[in-house]
Every structure is written in C-alpha cells, then in structure tokens.
C-alpha cells in the first residue's frame, strides 16, 4: 500500500509542479497577483506531496517491504535501523527522491519568505516549478522507486557496506541542500531577467539562498572528505576523483557568486555578471548530477549504469543551461549597468576574486571532463590525477589566497591601497614568523610546507587584524564577522593540508602477533587478531597497542569486515587523534601463517582540514544572520555604519 501512496504522491506532485511553474510565470507580470498566490499555494502542496512520497519510501525501507523492487535491491532485514532509514537515499532512485524533496523545501521557503516582492517571488517559483517538474518526470519515467516485485523475495540484496556508516545520514542530504540550493539562486537569476528587476534589491532578496547553498556545500564537501578519510583506509582525504570535482566546481562558483552578489547588493556593480554566475553555479550542479547519475563514471557514488537516465539528464542539462543562457543573452543587455569604481577599490578586489575562482573552477572542469571526452572521441583511456591539479589549480588558488586579506581592507568605490598595506603589516609579520618557524622547527625541512604555513598565518592574522580594526571603528557586525571567519577558516584548512601533505609519516609491515612496527615516535605492537561479529557482518579485529616513550598510551582496534548479504568486504580504520595530529591505523590483508599487513599513518594537523571547513561555514552563517536582519548584539547602529 505504501508504494502506491508514494507513486500517487509523486504523480500529484508532478501536476502541482506544472501548476506552480505556469502560475508562477504568469504571476511575474505586473497584474498577476492572483496567479502568484496560486503558485505559492502549489509550492506548499508540492512540498507536502513530495514529502509524503519520501516518507513512504523510508517507511518501505524501515519495514523491509521487499515487494518494492528498490527496497529488495538495496536493503536487508539484518541491517541496523539507522542504515535502513539512510539506505532509502543510498541508491539511485531514492537519492533522486531526496533531491526533489530538497528542491520542494526550497520552493516552500521561497513561497513562504516572499523575498523581493510578489513579482520576483512568483517568477522564481515558476522556474523552480519547471525544475521540479523535470526531475519528477525523470523519476517517474526512468527511476521509479516504487516499482513492485511479484513475488517478493524472502530477503533483500543489502546496501553497499561502504555506505553503512553514520556519514550517510548527513553527507547526501547536506550536499543536496547545497546543490539544490543553487537552484534557488538560479531561479532568482532567471526571475530577475524575466522581470527586469535584477538590481541591488534583487541581490538582497536572492543572497540568503546563495548563502544557505554555500554553507551546505561547504559542510557537505568537508563532511564527505572526512568520511572518505576515515573509511577508505589510505589516509587520504581528497582524491581529485571526478565525483569530488563535481562538488568542488559548484562550490568555487558559489563562492565567486557570494562575493559578486555582495558588490551588487552594496553598489549595484556586476549585475549581469552576478546573474551569469548564478546560472553557472546551478549548471555545474546539474553537470555534477549528470556525471554521477548517468553511469559515465564508476564510483561508490554512481549506483547504477543506465544510458537512458544519462540521456534524460543530458537533455535536462541542455534545456536548463541553454534556456537560461538564451534568456540571459536576450534580457541582460537591457539591464542598467551599475555605478563606476576606481581600480583600487573593494569592487576591484572582488572582481579579481571572481576571476581567480572562476579560472580555478575552469581548470577543475577541464581536468574532470577531458578524460571522458577523449574516451568518447578516440577510445583512449586516461586518468587525470593530482599532478595536473598541482600545476593548474594550485597556483591560481595560491594567488587568490595571497590577495584575500586586501579585499576587506579596501573601501567601496575608491579604496586606499597604502593604508590597506599599512593596516595589514602585523599580519605580514605574523606570516613571516610562521614561515620561518616552520622552516626552523619542522622536520624534514620543507620550503613549500613553510610557505603554506606562512600563507595560512597571513589569512588568519589578517582576519584578526580586520576584526580588531572594525571593532575599533565601531563597525564590527555580522558582515565583518562573516569575512573574518570565512577567510580564517581557509587558513586553518590550509594548515591542515600542509601538515598532512608535507609532514605525513607512513609505515606498513607484515606483523605476527607480538611483533612491532615503528612510526614517527610511536611503536605499534600487534597483540592479536580476533573474530568478532556485527549485526550483519563478520569481522577480523586487530588489537594494536600504541607505545610511546616506554609507556602504552592506547589500544587501537582496526577491523576488516565482510558482509555476506552483499558479498563485499570493507576495512574499518582506527584513528587516535590529539586534535593536532592523527595516528591512523588500518588492517590490511592476511598473509601466510596468521600474519597481517598493518598500515599506519601519522597525519600532523589533519583535523584542521575539516575544522577549517566548519569555520568557513560559520562565516557563511554569520553573513546569513546579518542578511536576514538578526540583530548583532545591540549594534543596529554598526550595521547602518557598515
């Protein structure tokens, strides 16, 4: 019964999405207030019915209703409850339902908040309705999660063990909140073009959606990287895998968008550019969806290979991007241009920021799609790895990081470079001290690593300098807090990257019980390898004592688990962190006579990588609170002075 309720809900949702799009676009006209009201109502209805469909699917997974094909293929009765719930989106069909659910959440939010007035809201809802209809059609035609199976099997096929992790509860929903949040920015951009209202007021209306999307993308990428780190057993946290790149590209463009929209909202500058970035950001989200869902890639993220789906998404991609760009080419020249600015000004800094961020996104785009294009055209199989990104992406990003501190210190319209340089002198000093200290203390001596530390200190210290100065000028509000946190977070992440990439120690050996292996001042002693059974797996668990300075300081227990239902095996790493350094141990394969391969890493400052991501997200949150008009202490006067 739940399957039929779900399918019916999806069909009704499709009808409501069409109503929302037609009424929304009709309401964009000057006298379309009633149509706009209908669009808002339809958006609420859409949320209810997609929510109902999503709930039915989760209910099917929780109750192990194997008469539903999707449940039979992706679940198992022995799976713990958490993974039955999260398993609902741990497969292609369910993940698309989650996608549409998040989309309808944003539609509901747009309808509820009515930001930027009736016409703009209505047009944005119209565009969102079109997107929702396209994705619902995609689900119903190619990825129906409620297909019945007769007779139902006795037991399900289970869920990929790599996905049987608490990370599955957070990573996909948060990342989708980011991907799909960019659809709201896209919808507002299209609405601005349709109504011709793409001015500072437009930017103020659309920015919260950009901020929510950016915060979610930041947290989604950070969380995904952490999950990969503790799951995959290689001590790595970023692999330049096409699927990771698919999330990095929208993040880079969304970051550019946030900064560009800031200028649009303050002085009306970069109007058309901001619109273009909003279109580009969501387009890259769709490209990411295409890469992951079409089966052109093989990865843990790509659940099933089905050319029909790939074709459908490709058509959707072309329609959305092409339509938006045509609209842009047609309407953008009619928009008024913003006010002029001096070559030394906040606007110029933001322009440079945008140029560098978009170039960085372009290098990732080429590195990700070139192998696919080459394979399609010539049949040659290549892979593009870290060396390519080290040459192209890294220099651009380093240039960007060097310039970041100047932006907040320059005034709008016309800035004073000399006074900016003078105010940043303490930060420059801190950067020098950090670089020299790293060069003197860290072993082995490494110039690149020391440079990275200097750059990180430059970012963090300049954020502090900026915050202190603004506080002295009684101008410290949400906006200043936002840039200080976001930019300092970059520095913290950079420290983590430098520590892990440059000063990582690595050891692996074949150990019999009682044997030891040294790594970076620790002594690892394999005590025993025992059989343990989990709810739906059998595991070999190693007990490894960690010795340091003649004292046993910890016992780590990495595992190797095999899942009989799924016929797969995964490792479970053991990590001991001090907050400043990780000792990371993974159990390898069994060799002859009960001896085991043990792999260990010491990753200095690794936790900083994800901590920095969290700090950046806090910066986004501060900006969002400011944008939504939440008071910063009793400093309403500050915000006005900003």
């Amino acid at each position, binding site marked *: 019964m739940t399957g039929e309720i779900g399918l019916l809900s999806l069909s009704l949702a499709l009808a409501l999405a069409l109503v929302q799009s037609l009424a929304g676009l009709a309401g964009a006209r000057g006298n379309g207030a009633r149509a706009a009201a209908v669009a808002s109502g339809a958006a609420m209805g859409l949320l209810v019915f997609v929510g109902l469909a999503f709930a039915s699917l989760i209910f099917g997974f929780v109750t192990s209703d194997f008469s539903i094909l999707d449940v039979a293929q992706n679940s198992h009765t022995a799976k713990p409850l958490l993974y039955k719930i999260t398993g609902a989106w741990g497969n292609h069909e369910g993940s698309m339902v989650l996608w549409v659910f998040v989309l309808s959440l944003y539609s509901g939010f747009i309808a509820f908040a009515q930001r930027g007035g009736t016409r703009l809201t209505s047009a944005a809802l119209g565009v969102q309705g079109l997107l929702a209809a396209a994705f619902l059609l995609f689900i119903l035609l190619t990825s129906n999660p409620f297909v019945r199976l007769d007779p139902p099997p006795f037991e399900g096929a289970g869920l990929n063990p790599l996905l049987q992790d608490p990370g599955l509860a957070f990573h996909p929903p948060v990342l989708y909140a980011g991907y799909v949040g960019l659809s709201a920015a896209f919808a507002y951009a299209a609405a601005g073009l349709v109504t011709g209202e793409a001015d500072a007021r437009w930017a103020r209306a659309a920015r919260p959606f950009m901020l929510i999307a950016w915060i979610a993308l930041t947290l989604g990428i950070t969380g995904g990287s952490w999950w990969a780190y503790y799951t995959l057993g290689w001590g790595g946290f970023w692999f330049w895998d096409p699927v990771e790149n698919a999330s990095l590209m929208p993040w880079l463009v969304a970051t550019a968008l946030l900064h560009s929209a800031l200028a649009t909202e303050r002085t009306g500058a970069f109007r058309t550019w901001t619109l273009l970035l909003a279109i580009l950001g969501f387009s890259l989200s769709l490209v990411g969806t295409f890469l992951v869902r079409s089966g052109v890639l093989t990865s843990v993220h790509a659940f099933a290979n089905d050319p029909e789906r790939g074709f459908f998404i490709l058509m959707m991609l072309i329609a959305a991007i092409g339509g938006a760009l045509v609209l842009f080419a047609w309407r953008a020249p009619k928009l008024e241009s913003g006010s002029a600015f001096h070559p030394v000004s906040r606007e110029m800094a933001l322009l440079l920021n945008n140029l560098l961020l978009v170039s960085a996104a372009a*290098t990732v785009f080429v590195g990700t799609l070139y192998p696919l294009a080459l394979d399609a055209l010539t049949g*040659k199989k290549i892979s593009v790895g870290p060396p390519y990104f080290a040459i*192209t992406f890294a*220099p651009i990003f380093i240039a960007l990081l060097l310039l970041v501190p100047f932006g907040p210190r320059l005034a709008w319209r016309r800035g004073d470079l000399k006074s900016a340089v003078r105010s940043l002198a303490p930060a420059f000093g801190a950067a020098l001290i950090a670089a020299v200290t790293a060069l003197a203390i860290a072993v082995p001596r490494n110039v690149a690593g020391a440079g990275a530390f200097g750059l990180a200190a430059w970012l963090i210290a300049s954020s502090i300098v900026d915050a202190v100065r603004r506080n002295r000028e009684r101008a410290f509000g949400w906006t200043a807090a936002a840039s200080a946190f976001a930019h300092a977070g970059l520095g913290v992440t950079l420290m983590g990257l430098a520590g892990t990439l440059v000063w990582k120690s690595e050891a692996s050996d074949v150990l019999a019980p009682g044997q030891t292996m040294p790594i970076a001042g620790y002594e690892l002693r394999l005590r025993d390898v025992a059989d343990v059974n989990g709810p739906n797996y059998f595991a070999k668990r190693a007990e490894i004592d960690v010795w340091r300075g003649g004292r046993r300081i910890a016992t780590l227990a990495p595992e190797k688990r095999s899942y009989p239902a799924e016929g797969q*095996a995964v490792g479970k790493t053991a990590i001991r962190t001090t907050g400043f350094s990780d000792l990371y141990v*993974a159990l*390898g*394969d069994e060799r002859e006579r009960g001896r085991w391969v043990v792999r260990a890493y010491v990753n200095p400052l690794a936790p900083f990588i994800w901590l920095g991501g969290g700090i950046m997200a806090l910066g986004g949150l501060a900006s969002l609170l400011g944008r939504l008009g939440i008071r910063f202490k009793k400093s309403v006067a500050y915000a006005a002075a900003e």
Partner: protein
Amino acid sequence: MSPKKRRRLYFAIALVVAGAGGAALIVRALQDNVLYFYSPSDIATKHVPPDVAFRIGGLVEKGSVAHGPGTEVRFIVTDGRKRVPIAYSGALPDLFREGQGVVATGALARGGVFRASEVLAKHDERYMPPEVVDALKRAGRWKEGGT
C-alpha cells in the same frame, strides 16, 4: 576613445591574456600529467618505455601470487593473451583475489616487471573495473555474465 571605453579595452585585453595563459597552462599540464591505461596486449604492441607511469589492468593469473619479503607481493596480470609480471609493496585491497580484475598504477622497470605504486581491486564481487572489461573484450576473452 573615451576613458571609459579605454578602460574596458584594457580590461578585455587583460582578460584575453589571462585566458590564453591559463589555457596554455592547462594544455601543458594535460600533456605531461595524465596516466594512460594499457592492457597487457597493449604493452606488448606499443613498446611502452620504462619509467613512464601508466595504469595497467587485467585479471590476476591463478597461482601467480607470491608474497615476501615484508609486504612485497608479486603476481601476474593477464588479459588472456599476454601476461605482465607486477611487483608491489604494501597492503592489498580487500577484494584482491586470484582470477579477479585489478587495476595497478606504476611504471615498467628494466626487465619488463611492472613496479606498482598502487593496486586497486573491485570492492564488490559483482563489479569489474570497466577498463578491465574493455581490455578483456579487446583480447576476445570476455564472457558476458561471468569472470
């Protein structure tokens, strides 16, 4: 030319120069830093020079895996026509088995042994790396539905 137009022209020139520089950077990086994928038959026909990194894929030949000393492993990868010996030091992936598909990254050393820096196996008994499927198909040794 008005000052505004001149500023725009300079800006456009700067953009073009930056774009061209970026494109040149990307093209160079792509020339030198991509890894090609070869099957054992490709290696025999293409005369891949030693010390050039690439990826190789095929099936681990039955009875070819030898361990030691330490974490050293030696095995042979085959596409049914040609065989390439592989040496690797480190932990093997969870589903590394004889008769199953693997992809290794590394370079040929002198004597024709492929020195691998990384070995990837399928993490799922049902899944075969697509490059390996392709290599087996080209060697005429691919049976649909079986390994």
